[in-house]
Each structure stands twice: as structure tokens, then as C-alpha cells.
């Protein structure tokens, strides 16, 4: 293999792996468990209540 072929192969490998990591991270972000309860507005000023648990 020529040097350009070797370098290119490594670059493509890096791109594929980095792309996989990026997609994994973004998927984890999307499926991150809710850390705080959702709140909903019940009408008055500062009148927010935690949503009933979905669990």
C-alpha cells in the first residue's frame, strides 16, 4: 500500500469511529432518564405542581 492509502484508511477508520461515538452520545442524551419531575402550570403566578408520576 502507498502512504496515501495507509493514511486514508486510518482517516476513514477514525471518521467511522468518531461518527459512531457522536451518534451514541446523542442517542444517550435523547434517552436520558428524567432527573427532575415534570411540572405543569395550574393557573396562578408561580403555581406549578409536579406532574403525577408516570411510573
Amino acid at each position, binding site marked *: 500500500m502507498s502512504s*496515501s492509502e495507509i493514511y*486514508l484508511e486510518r*482517516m*476513514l477508520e477514525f*471518521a467511522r469511529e*468518531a*461518527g459512531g461515538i*457522536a*451518534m451514541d452520545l*446523542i442517542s444517550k442524551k435523547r434517552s436520558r432518564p428524567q432527573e427532575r419531575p415534570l411540572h405543569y402550570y395550574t393557573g396562578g403566578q408561580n403555581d406549578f405542581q409536579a406532574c403525577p408520576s408516570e411510573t
Partner: protein
Amino acid sequence: MDQKRLDQTPYIWAVDPIDGTRLYANRMPMFGISMGLIKDLKPWLGVVYFPMLKELFYCDGTHSYYVRNAFGPDEIKVQIAPINEELSPRSLFFCNDTFFDRFYWKPKDFHILINACAVVNLCWPAIGRGVGCFLRCHIWDFAGSWPIIRQAGYDFRRVSDGRILDKVQADLFAREPLSWHLKEYYLISTERNFQEILSRIAQR
């Protein structure tokens, strides 16, 4: 960065693990992994991968390719050929929001689209999505795309005098506060469209 040291540097790697971080952080698909290998201060090998779009652009030093469904069993590879597209009412020119700090656009016949990602701005015109772009950025933002777009007939031309960026030179880059950042704005287009696009850009 001094020219003497650069002249003794056979290779420069320029890697941007995520170009378009704002888009990535907002879960939008227009972000890419960019890698360029500059040889003897000239663009040589380049790889740009858009993982959410499964699109890959690369230059092997001689030819450039666009790959759909990249790294999958059904990938389709097409060689990038020189584009000689005439400007028309459907033409789009890319820029980022910093463009408006110093310039404004005189819309006529064709229009601009603001992307927050240099590799989109650079790679897409190479396959006919848009007619060029306007950039002032770091070397790692464009090094991966640089050899690819040249295969499509595009060049970086300095807005101030039309000089083509064809090699890394110390005096073209700022040292402070942003190292490896182009000092001036460049218009990336085919030769035939350069003056026409430039005529739509006015300095504030």
C-alpha cells in the same frame, strides 16, 4: 506559527472531531467529523463524515468521492467531478451568521442560506447543493474539505483581492487571539461565479 518552521514541516494534520457543534448540541443532522492531511503545505488528503446523514466525502490525493449510506452494506460511491454550474434563481450561497458583522447581502436572482457548520458549507457545493460559500475560519474547519472541493472546481479566493488560497502560509493566519484562524474572509466558488457572487456582497 512562523514560515521557517512551516517550511520544514512535511505534514500537518488538522482534525475537527465535531464541526457544527451548535447543530450537534441541538440534535440537528448537519454536523461532521473533519480531517485533513496537508502535505508540503498543500491540501492532500481529506475526509468529512456526516454520521447522522450517513454521508461521506473524501479525497484520496488524486480524486474525490461522495458516498451515500457510508460505512453500510448498501453504500453508493460517486466520484466528484468539476462543477460548472451557472447561477440561477434557484442557486443558494452559504454563509454563517458572522458574515453579517462586516458584510451584507444584496439579494438578486439567487439567495443565501445560513448554516452553522463549515463542512456543510464546503462539502455540499461539491455535489451541486449550493454554489459556494463564504468563510473565515480555523484551519481545522476547512482542512478536510479543502482537497475535496478543489476536485469539484472550487477554490478559496480572498475577498479583498481574489488571491487563491492554495497552500498554508503563516502570514495568512492570525496568531492572536485565535491561532490558525484565517485573517481574512474567503469566498469559495468556481472561477466563473466568483465575480458574480462577489458583486452581491457589500461591506458594511
